[in-house]
């Protein structure tokens, strides 16, 4: 029996979705803990992709570069919180929106200036073959990126669920005042959560460089998807993100094939509007 390209598309959709999940989990973590919608999230991803490209120039392939990029992005995220977001939070509510949006514009402009708008791909890709599994052809690089994302998402879930800092993050996202009464230092944990959220873009950026190219505007493309994923899954819900991301990955890949590659995001946004209309809190959001 010929099932056509469907199995192939489903595998591809899931692998894509896992990367979306890794990016989005950082976005939702930051929102959950401190109610900040980080409009510059995609720009951090873009920076991570350039960092991975740069480490490639000194001989580290994206897999080897990943831990370096993750640590660097964690530190960068914590510093951005400490010296920028923290100040915005002390201002009126709009300050955070315009502040992180301003950061987006700034980082994108800076990338344009320093890196030009040329596309950059790693010169030393560790995977280039194609696996054939029962009629499904998967690029090794795409498989490695997807599985890498899966492992990291599992690690983040485990961290949030079973460790003491994870417990504190959950407490903060549920009730900030009660969390303070437990002796949790909000500013410290905010910086930690922001670092963690940005570290997710670090990991995703390194994995994406297995299959994508870096250019100044790439962050915006992924960020748009991440916003859809987070809204779908429920803002602040870590588990919702996985569901939302897999859905978006599947819909995007299937839509791209059955409708038209250029219109692949159309069914994603249609799904998004439908969910937001019927269930504004997202699929797994509370309220």
């Amino acid at each position, binding site marked *: 029996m010929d099932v056509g390209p469907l199995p192939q598309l489903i595998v591809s959709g899931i692998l894509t979705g896992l990367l979306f999940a890794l990016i989005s989990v950082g976005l939702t973590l930051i929102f959950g803990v401190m109610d900040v919608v980080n409009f510059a999230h995609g720009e951090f991803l873009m920076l991570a992709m350039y960092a991975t490209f740069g480490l490639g120039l000194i001989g580290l392939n994206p897999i080897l570069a990943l831990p370096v990029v993750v640590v660097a992005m964690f530190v960068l995220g914590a510093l951005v919180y400490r010296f920028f977001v923290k100040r915005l939070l002390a201002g009126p509510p709009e300050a955070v929106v315009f502040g992180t949006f301003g950061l987006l514009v700034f980082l994108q402009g800076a990338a344009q200036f320093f890196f030009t708008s040329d596309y950059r791909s790693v010169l030393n890709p560790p995977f280039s073959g194609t696996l054939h599994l029962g009629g499904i052809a998967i690029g090794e690089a795409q498989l490695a990126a997807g599985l890498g994302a899966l492992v990291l998402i599992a690690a983040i879930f485990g961290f949030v669920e079973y460790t003491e800092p994870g*417990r504190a993050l959950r407490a903060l996202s549920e009730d900030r005042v009660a969390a303070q*009464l*437990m002796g949790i230092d909000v500013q410290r944990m905010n910086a930690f959560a922001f670092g963690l959220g940005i570290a997710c873009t670090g990991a995703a950026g390194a994995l994406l460089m297995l299959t994508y190219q870096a250019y100044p505007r790439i962050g915006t493309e992924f960020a748009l998807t991440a916003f859809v994923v987070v809204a779908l899954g429920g803002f602040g819900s870590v588990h919702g993100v996985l569901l939302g991301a897999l859905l978006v990955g599947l819909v995007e890949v299937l839509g791209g094939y059955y409708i038209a590659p250029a219109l692949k995001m159309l069914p994603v946004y249609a799904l998004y509007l439908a969910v937001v209309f019927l269930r504004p809190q997202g699929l797994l959001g509370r309220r």
Partner: protein
Amino acid sequence: MTNSTPLIAVRDLEVDYAGVRAVQGLSLYASRGEIVALVGANGAGKSTLLRAISGIVRAASGAIAFEGENIASFEPHTIVRRGISHVPEGRRVFATATVRDNLLLGAYVMRDRAERERRLAAALATFPRLQERLDQRASTLSGGEQQMLAIARGTMSAPKLLMLDEPSLGIAPLVIPAIYAGIREIARSGTTVLLVEQNVREALAIADRGYVLQTGRVVAEGTGADLAGDPLVQKAFLGL
């Protein structure tokens, strides 16, 4: 420090909410091992006083001396480390977390794992009902059980001062004795208790001393028995 210095002494405390004065020139103290009741009508400033002590709201002026140190400008997490625990109005347990995680969060400032386990055992001995619910989400507990959890969580940091804000509010009357038995036990173990209540009869019965608050000020003080016998208190709160 001598034992005659109160554990906590609040002096001339003033607290504003966006320009509206909620606490005005309030002074009170609690000595080590005492149960001190704070009673007063809605809006008297009881919760605001507790929030100012735990650092959740800032005092506009006045002093909060805890073990002789003015903590009025300290951050909430520092105040918890100093040994003050605040069980807020409305319980505010972490609904999606398990009972165990709620209790462990109460011991967040405690670094020593063995000590944390000891506190957990003590808390469960005080409120045995929580034992069988350890792995349930807090949201699945009844209101009374959630209050027990909130108080138990408040004891997990081994506080010197435990502040309880209306622990019997909205609780089924049948469960209130178990909650009060728990509070007595905590006090017997040496913890100083500041007990805010609208349930004036119960609060004054259990308290060593009490204060009556009205529009942000202390209008009467005395032993629990004195206040319960005070005609003003009887008329205003006990319906006599």
